[in-house]
């Protein structure tokens, strides 16, 4: 009888596992959920690699990488305004009135270049090309291109090797999160280079000793060599260059650079 009672009214031994399992579940859930949500919501995962399809299969790799166009040939306002303007159709037409206007089709007939069709259409109708914004900051952060470009922050710092991005379009290379912005705002010396090398995406501090006389970078090289008493073929490190340019370009102190009002209004 007694056994029967026990078997019916006493928890089985397996019930001992319920509590640890429950604890595990709670702890597991409590770590799993934030991890998933945190990683899922991280700009690293949401934004890096964002590559929308553009109306024109424009290749920076071709124009900048191979042909060597300067960034400022098209993005003219980058050192004058907050916004680095997309070039007007007219800029495209400066060359494409003549260059690659037509291609040969399968039957070897001259036809209009289909890749450039939206450009020609825009030029003929006066309607703008609707480029898709790739690097899209939230509206409450006010990034100013001119403030960076004029102080020797290269395009590459935020946009990556655009000169390697092909017909698939420009993609977002950096996560553009606030923590990422602050990395530089806390230690700007890591990202400063002579102003004349801002659009030279392949340039690094090691290339400074190769500077041509008469350029700004050459003057800076001389200043650094004097300051650090370097021999002509001694390498200049980014740290040395950055510290020097911080003073030369009047980069403000960390307190200013990390003030809320510097980027938010």
């Amino acid at each position, binding site marked *: 009888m007694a056994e029967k009672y026990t078997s019916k009214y006493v928890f089985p031994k397996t019930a001992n596992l319920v509590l640890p399992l429950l604890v595990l579940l709670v702890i597991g859930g409590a770590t799993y959920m934030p991890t998933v*949500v945190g990683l*899922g*919501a991280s700009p690293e995962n*949401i*934004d890096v690699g*964002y590559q*929308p399809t553009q109306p024109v299969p424009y290749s920076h790799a071709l124009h900048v990488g191979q042909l060597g166009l300067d960034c400022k040939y098209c993005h003219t*306002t980058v*050192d*004058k*305004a*907050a*916004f680095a*303007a*997309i*070039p*007007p*159709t*007219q800029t495209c037409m400066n060359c494409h009135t003549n260059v690659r206007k037509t291609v040969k089709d399968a039957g070897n007939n001259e036809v209009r270049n289909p890749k450039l069709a939206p450009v020609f259409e*825009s*030029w003929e109708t*006066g*309607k*703008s*090309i*609707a*480029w*898709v*914004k790739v690097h*899209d900051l*939230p*509206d*409450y952060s*006010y990034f*100013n291109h*001119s*403030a960076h470009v*004029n*102080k020797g922050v290269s395009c590459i710092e935020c946009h990556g090797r655009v000169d390697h991005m092909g017909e698939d379009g420009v993609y977002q290379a950096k996560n553009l999160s606030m923590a990422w912005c602050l990395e530089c705002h806390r230690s700007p010396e890591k990202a400063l280079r002579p*102003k004349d090398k801002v659009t030279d995406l392949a340039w690094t501090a090691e290339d400074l000793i190769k500077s041509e006389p008469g350029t700004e970078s050459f003057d800076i090289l001389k200043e650094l060599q004097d300051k650090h008493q370097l021999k002509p073929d001694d390498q200049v490190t980014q740290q040395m260059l950055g510290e020097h340019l911080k003073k030369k*370009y*009047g980069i*403000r*102190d960390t*307190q*200013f650079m990390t*003030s*809320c*009002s*510097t980027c*938010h*209004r």
Partner: protein
Amino acid sequence: MNEDKTGSMKTGQTYWQSLNELANTPAVRAAIETEFPTYDPGAMVNTSRRKFLQFAGASMALAGVTLTGCRRWPKENVVEQTSRPQGRIPGVPEQYATAFEIGGYAQPLLVSTYDGRPIKVEGNPMHPLSATFGGKLGAATVFAQASILEMYDPERSRTIVYRKAVDRGEARSPEAFFSAFQAKPGSKIAILTESTSSPTTRDQLKRFAAKFAGTKVYEYEAVSGDNQYAADKQTFGQPVRQVFDLSKAQIVVSFDADLLGLHPYALRHANDWSKKRKTADTDKTMNRMYVVESHLTTTGTVADERFPATVRIIEQMVLQLAHKAGLESAQGGLDERQVAFIDKMWKDLEANAGKVIVAGGPNLRPDVLGIINAINGKLRAIGATINLRPEPDRGTHIEQIRALVDSMNAGGVDTLIILGGNPVYDAPADLNFGGALASVSGKGTTIHPSLYDNETSHACQWHVNRAHYLESWGDSESFDGSVCLQQPMIRPLFNGYTPASFLAAMAGETVETVTGLKADEVKEVALDQAVLYRVWSGITGEKFVATSPAFRKALHDGFIPAAKHPVDEITRQDWNNAIKKPTVSFSQATGEYEVRFAADYSMYDGRFANNGWLQELPDAVTKISWDNAALISHVDAEKFGIYQDDYSTDMIELDLGGQKIQIAAYVMPGQPKGVITLPLGFGRSRAGAILLTENPGSIGYQVGFNTYAVRSTNNLWVANVAKPVKTGKRYQIATTQTHHIIEPVGYEIREDRVGKQSQGGKIVHESTLAAYLQNATAPHKKAHNLIPLQLFPEPYKPGAKREGGPDAFNSPHAWGMAMDMNACIGCNACVVACQAENNIPIVGKDMVMMNREMHWLRIDRYFKASGEDYHAKINDDNPQVTYQPMTCVHCENAPCEQVCPVAATVHDSEGLNTMVYNRCIGTRYCANNCPYKIRKFNYLDYQSKHPREHYFPWLGIPDTQQKESVDKIRALAFNPDVTVRMRGVMEKCTYCVQRIKHASIDRRNEWVNGQRSKPEVDDFDVVTACQETCPTEAIVFGDLNDPNSAVTKLHQGARAYQVLQELNNRPRTHHLAKIRNPAEEPVAIEKEEVH
């Protein structure tokens, strides 16, 4: 006013903002003690369980929405022009000069456009009317500032509308309209135009009349200088315009003339007047202004000597002054005080002859205004402080509209074109313009081109949409005689015509016929542009005006200066003697009470009724928002048992010769006994185009009371009534005068802690000129004995940047501001400028009543009555007024920052107390801890909410706001440099951080590129929106690290003080004490008083 129930303040306070504050009612005490007086957590707590679960469910659902929001935000396009005009930089605002016409006079402007959208209006710094700070900046009026919102008003008329009877009408194409008209050109055409000085419109009127013989042109303005016109024509023998030069006037006398308020030349007056006040610091002298007036105006509030009186008494006082001047025989009927006031005034005038101005208001009779001209002549003012300019001989407006109505009633008009204006609403009631118009509409053709499909449009057969001044070409003459050009900032949003292009189109003119060029040559030319070019080719004497240097210069500058031609070749001395003095007689008064009509500081004559910024703007003097009311003195109110608290008031009925009006009464300090003021411009029945009867309706639909309903031809400005009758109804009124009352906090507690010698700092510091000259610390009394009360550790390590400069938050600049209470005239231009610059929403009347107006900048208006006890003070009809502009003072030691749990409000390195909207979680602790009460909380998504929509979620009305976005057209008006704040976020003045950043980035770029010698900004490189528009230069912003900046000098001046200095908040905004210059010094120096 109700009695002081607490019994604690028998004498009343020294400074107070509303009669209830003076009475120290429990409601006001509660308002002072709580930051959110109408917020009742109990209401939320007491919700039923079911309701609570609903809330909880809704919150969960919202949380779900937020989680799924973890994705990239919507795709954005960059749409660049196909070919960019030379010099254009996308994203950089451009400024163009233009002009805005009101009442027939131009206001010269400079408009900023952002990627083709006009977003901000400033005064033209080159034009003599608007130039401030020696031509560095330009001032603009509230109306000009708010006109941006009018342009982006989605309720503006968009099409031509045809109405058979008075109904909603049908949209018609322009072709249909013009063919309909030209098929039957009427032989008896009349044109009723609003007052305009536009050379192009006048030219088109002439051409139209030449084409259609028999066309008669009439002109009407509801708020008109008719009486002055008639008086000048009589006394000078020809119509003239008197242009006052207050910069040369030591004594300014105003008899009901609102020289600094609604006068067309007010901006110049205010600037010149304020310059003569600021000489108190430099030359130990100041001008003196006498104001005799029948209700409190902005001019009266800043007068050194003010005398409130009925219009009838004012007219007799003018005659008394004429008697002193030897122009009239002795006058009876005045009491001792009135005679003494005139004696005092005359003594000053006589001593300063040649450096005086005597001005009369539009409500005085022409004869009396003629006497004032004669007094000016006697005082050798004409030619010295008063310049005469030619004025067109037009006849008075009232004669013209009467003639038109007579002609309409007699069948003399079969086609009526009402060119702008809104006569059905604002014509004198006894003329029954609406009835006459209906009879013409029934038989003939009536056409009304106008910005809104308004009352008059609804009574006409045709309504034609008009283009806004920011969208079209035009011109007009400013009060000083310069001709201003108006150029489009944007293509018309809803198409439309200007008055000139409409007349041209009616006369069958096209761009080709006007220019004489072929169609393909004028592809880009609009009709309004073509007719303007035709007229300006005459003005500049150039055939191809568009490319002529003279026109290009005029377009760039915005105007061509007035030709220097006086009215006559007669010498000045002769003018002063040649004035023909009229004779004045007084008829027997018929009523016990005088009713005085007045143009409104926000609505003007009613044309701005659909402008939410102006509707919500607390009136310059009364501080009423979203309403008008009959202003009545406290003595009279008590007599009739009118009781007013800060939320509601009694309705009264006034009988004006058979026409009755029911209107809310508003007890106004400074209102003379026996005068009831009725502000014009409210109670519009058709202000916008949206379906009127629907919730929410249009912005201006039946806001306030239509006082035109009782205004008739024989009492345009002043009427007599037996007496007001209480109707027994109550009316809810939104007034901001008891909102955000500052009080020096916790006297008793402080004394317990630091002892008696800690004198409470007063909020208002003021002094008389004589006392100030004797002792420069006179305005501050004992405030310099203050022991600062430190509540928490200072958040910084002092490190002086320079001797005397701020010792923290000063790298590389130290921003600071000075607000001069001696110059502020309370005109509100800064409030609207701030609203336009910083995307500040409109909240609506119900929200204003709950203390929730969002204006970052408010103008506190303090009264100070004479008299020992409470009763004497409350019955004083001549209290002194001090305006104190108040906004975030950017404390270095900020109380708000100490209590924010998420560090959403913190300092930046230059001293800005920044507000980080994205960190804010809406606890509102900061607002609660702000002693200046300048923080504003977004209780709702006000930008997407319609201000007329009633919204109380806890009453079970569904939350529609999460779905709705901001109206597409309204969103165009946003300043893209400033974040649009959402619900649940605290906000406040940022010192226009966007302007600071633009200037400092640009200057530093120039320095890096070797175009500039120093990286720091110069003085006036950064100008806040409020400073830029202030006509009296009362607000100055700049760098306190720069020892030569204007703001540093003001901070170091003797008048500078910190409001609530005893709290050791170390505000970066210093206020400058007010200095009064009364004619006679008070016998005893004022007692030490604590507010």
